[in-house]
């Protein structure tokens, strides 16, 4: 079941409804990168509010996704990380290493807008 990717203005929005298997994450990453190019967007919001758990693979995957889309010309923001997930990740020593995060979709769009303005593009 492919994950729907929505477009809103200059931003792609992905809302994960459930945990994705490793291969599904990889496919999502490729698809996002493709869409960044074809839709000519400058930002990506990945909403993980529905996820109860994020393991080390998923964390690495999201980090990679952000870096890839960056190279393709878009900034990625991850939103909706739940408190328990955040605490678990910190305790396991997982780090998103500079990938941008925000509280929720609204905040995420706000962050992207300001980032876009700042970069002067």
């Amino acid at each position, binding site marked *: 079941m492919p994950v729907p990717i929505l477009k809103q203005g200059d931003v792609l929005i992905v809302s994960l409804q459930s945990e994705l298997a490793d291969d599904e994450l990889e496919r999502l990453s490729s698809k996002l990168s493709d869409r960044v190019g074809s839709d000519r967007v400058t930002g990506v919001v990945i909403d993980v509010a529905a996820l109860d758990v994020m393991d080390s693979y998923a964390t690495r995957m999201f980090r990679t996704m952000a870096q890839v889309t960056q190279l393709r010309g878009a900034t990625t923001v991850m*939103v909706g990380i739940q408190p328990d997930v*955040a605490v678990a990740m910190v305790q396991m020593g997982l780090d998103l290493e500079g990938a941008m995060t925000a509280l929720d979709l609204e905040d995420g769009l706000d962050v992207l807008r300001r980032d876009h303005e700042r970069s002067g593009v």
Partner: protein
Amino acid sequence: MATTFPTTPLELLDDPEALTAFWQIYDRNFDRIADHLMKVLSNHAEFASLIDALPPDQMLEQRTAGRERLRAAVVDGHWSQYWNYLHDEGVTYARSGLGFSSWFAAVTAFREPFIEAALDELDITSDMFRRVVLASQAFTDTAMATLGSAYLDEKQRVIEEQQDALRELATPILSLRESLLILPLVGVVDSERARQITDDLLHAVTRDRARVVVVDITGVPAVDSMVANHLIQTTDAARMMGATIVVSGISTENAQTLVRIGVDPNRLNTIADLRGAIEWANQLLDT
């Protein structure tokens, strides 16, 4: 909470014959002993009001029931029933505010007439008299131990209740403006409380959509490595969620302690005073 009744004095007795004799003497002289008990307790500061509050027919009912309960214990062996009842009574009296030491007056008021009754029936030089006295002591000792354990159980329950209440009081999370929360920490922070604080704070971030939380620790007397690590963890987790935590109110002493124990200042956003922290937060939010 399971309570094992200290029936040891009675178990140690190992003299069923004397125990039965004790019961028989008590039973035969029941009214006399009960009347004496009532008279003494009516003049006792703490028991008096409890006795006055009891209507006479209820008092008679309780007396009769108590007598039957003890009979069932000694004669039919229903001791656990007896001690369970006494334990529950103890809890009730503890709650009503009756001091534990008052029960010693009740025991004395029982012993005096009982010994007199035993003297009436037995020869003071006889071995049976000695054994009956020991049996009566084992009984009253066990009764006091049971009441004592009931009082302790009740106190423990109150302490736990208060601890829960304290924990809830202890972490008010206040909204200063949109997207800004303040959490003034006061008092001793143990690891259970620290865990609770982290939980409450992060959930408040989600619920109130706060992008900055100012945690003021002016009221925390001693910040040790456990507290520092919790603050760092919370800061990291909040950052992951898209929020920033600023810690204000670290005293010079606490700062020196933290450096000494090796806490990396770069892992925390800190500022000396609350006002500075709020100004910083406002700037961050208004950018």
